[in-house]
């Protein structure tokens, strides 16, 4: 969706813009084939076939790769890559990319996130701070539509929010208990990119309110959640300045040594396999983190034999992600006389509290977590025949609530966590396969143990019972929050991009997707990608207008 943001900013301000997408077009409303299907209308009732699982061991480990939305995901066999260590690379090759199937959680990053590497001594210092991005967060939120509460937390700054959905009794209870038992911990409403009230800009976008269908991954006919297809792309097209070209696989960025800048991109038609060069004054690379790395690594010239802008040899290195391995569940018997009605598309959220103000553990950084609570239902399924049917017809809520949390841990960018090009194997379009060499480390393992201990304590103090912790074994990448490889920084010797996301060594190339990230924070990163993109695009536009690029 960062590419969509760049297109919106440039076209709105009168620049003719070419938007390249390697996959097919997906038009809002027209290309959501399953969006109105009822559960009983699916041949396998939502399940994957054994062959689909066998053919897609990576994609099928993604929670949203199911019968209703599998068509939006890259199939493993069609787009292979090399796993030096196990890594689930979850991709969506179509106009709109993964914004169609994303989880829609949009928490701002805080000053503690941008200060982190310098304070704690890892990676390199961010060249920007929260204050540089704050207004751009507001700008982006106004267009996206973010439902949330103003919580007044410095660890999770407030934004321009639409009204939240109601909290349920157990969410409220746990929030109060945590407030009572801890001075530095909070349980708040998870801010999400869903429309809960209308504003003129959303009407202009043609979007309606979210109806809590909770099948967003199919594409929403109401435009109730934000994706690029319902907002950014049509918005940019409406200006008359956008040319959208699907089925265009970017092979490399073309560099002119005389002019000492990039002059365009080489594109391979994904269907005909024909190659064509497109020329432009300025290039924004937003192919999603790892493909942006791949394109730059493959952009070789006499000036840049190891990839565009890669004088320091750090391109593709310092990849990081979010550690989603740890979960905890329990039961609560406190509100037997209450239940829920309807649905909402978000859960509650526990902002990071570990090592926030000072270092207090034997691991660096910390984790955020989700929190959800729901009435447990009991359905017996013993025996056969009339006995069995009778049990099914007497399904009932038990009066006990199930509760659960999942950890979202910050991982540390390390040089050894990197991607590179395979020297022999290529894909169907003749582009080298990406080799991904990324893994967890001791810091992540310690963080998992701390999550278990802290949340077990928080749950116990709240009176929850049957507390069970679990390591779900999710591989790196399965969080779908991979970041880095083309990181921002102050020093060209240790980073690839400056404070405006401009390549140190090639000023008319900007990288504003996840590849630009210097560190990962704990918050879902998409909102930050969008804010960074809007900021960089407006800087680039000013530079273009002043003829400085």
């Amino acid at each position: 969706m960062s590419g969509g943001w760049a297109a919106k900013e440039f076209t709105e301000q009168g620049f003719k813009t070419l938007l390249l997408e390697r996959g097919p077009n997906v038009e809002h409303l027209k290309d959501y084939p399953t969006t109105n299907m009822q559960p009983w209308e699916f041949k396998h009732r939502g399940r994957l076939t054994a062959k689909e699982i066998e053919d897609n061991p990576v994609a099928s480990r993604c929670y949203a790769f199911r019968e209703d939305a599998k068509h939006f995901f890259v199939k493993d066999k069609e787009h292979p890559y090399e796993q030096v260590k196990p890594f689930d690379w979850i991709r969506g090759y179509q106009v709109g990319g993964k914004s169609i199937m994303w989880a829609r959680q949009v928490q701002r990053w805080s000053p503690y996130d941008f200060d982190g590497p310098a304070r704690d001594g890892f990676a390199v210092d961010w060249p920007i701070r929260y204050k540089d991005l704050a207004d751009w967060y507001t700008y982006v939120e106004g267009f996206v539509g973010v439902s949330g509460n103003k919580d007044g937390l410095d660890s999770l700054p407030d934004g321009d929010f639409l009204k939240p959905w109601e909290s349920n009794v157990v969410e409220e209870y746990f929030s109060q208990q945590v407030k009572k038992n801890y001075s530095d911990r909070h349980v708040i409403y998870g801010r999400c990119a869903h429309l809960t009230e209308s504003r003129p800009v959303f009407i202009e976008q043609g979007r309606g309110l979210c109806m809590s269908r909770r099948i967003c991954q199919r594409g929403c006919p109401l435009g109730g959640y934000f994706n690029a297809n319902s907002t950014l792309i049509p918005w940019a097209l409406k200006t008359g300045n956008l040319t959208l070209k699907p089925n265009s696989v970017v092979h490399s960025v073309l560099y002119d040594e005389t002019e000492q800048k990039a002059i365009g991109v080489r594109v391979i038609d994904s269907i005909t396999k024909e190659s064509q060069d497109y020329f432009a004054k300025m290039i924004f690379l937003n192919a999603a983190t790892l493909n942006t790395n791949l394109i730059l690594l493959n952009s070789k010239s006499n000036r840049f034999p190891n990839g565009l802008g890669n004088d320091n040899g750090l391109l593709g290195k310092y990849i990081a992600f979010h550690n989603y391995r740890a979960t905890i569940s329990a039961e609560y018997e406190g509100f037997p006389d209450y239940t829920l009605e309807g649905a909402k598309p978000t859960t509650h959220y526990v902002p990071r509290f570990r090592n926030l103000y000072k270092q207090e553990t034997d691991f660096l950084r910390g984790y955020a977590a989700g929190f959800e609570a729901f009435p447990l239902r009991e359905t017996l399924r013993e025996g056969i025949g009339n006995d069995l049917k009778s049990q099914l017809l007497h399904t009932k809520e038990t009066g006990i609530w199930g509760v659960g949390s999942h950890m979202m841990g910050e991982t540390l960018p390390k040089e050894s966590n990197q991607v590179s090009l395979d020297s022999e194997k290529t894909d169907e379009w003749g582009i080298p396969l990406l080799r991904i060499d990324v893994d967890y480390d001791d810091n992540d393992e310690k963080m998992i143990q701390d999550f278990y201990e802290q949340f077990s304590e928080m749950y116990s103090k709240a009176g929850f019972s049957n507390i069970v912790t679990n390591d779900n074994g999710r591989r790196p990448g399965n969080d779908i929050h991979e970041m880095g490889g083309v990181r921002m920084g102050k020093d060209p010797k240790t980073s690839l991009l400056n404070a405006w996301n401009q390549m140190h060594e090639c000023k008319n190339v900007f990288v504003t997707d996840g590849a630009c990230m210097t560190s990962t924070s704990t918050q879902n990163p998409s909102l930050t990608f969008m804010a960074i993109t809007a900021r960089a695009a407006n800087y680039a536009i000013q530079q273009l207008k002043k003829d400085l690029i």
Partner: protein
Amino acid sequence: MLPYACDLTPEISYSNFPLLKKEQQEFIARICSLILREDPENFPTPEPRGHFVLTLVNDCLDNEQRAEFSQGFEAFQQLFSTANEGAFQELEPEELQRHILENIEEQETEVGIFLNHLKTYSLLHFETSENYMKNYLNFEFMPGRYYGKVPV
């Protein structure tokens, strides 16, 4: 002159079970119905129970599970020949039900595995029927609201 015969009865073929004859498909459908009776009047579904279950068995079981299913089906049919009860098509519902009951709790045996696959998918078929989802599980396709403090 060569003898020949043409059977023009429409027949569904399941790609992973090409040798499954029509009467065997019907027999599996009978078993499913005895495990959990179809109720098309009150719990209508887009497809008949037997076809749904065989579709899921065909598509969603992996190679090993399909082999287990086939062995279990074969073993289940053998029960009748060893019991001198004649062909499975001729079994009375009570007799068939008795065999199911005697074996379905034995989840480690070939027959138990076979029967439990049928039970799993029969339950899925019933529990994803429109009436059951809407009126017993409170499913709403487009609720448009969320109330978190509703007295029971």
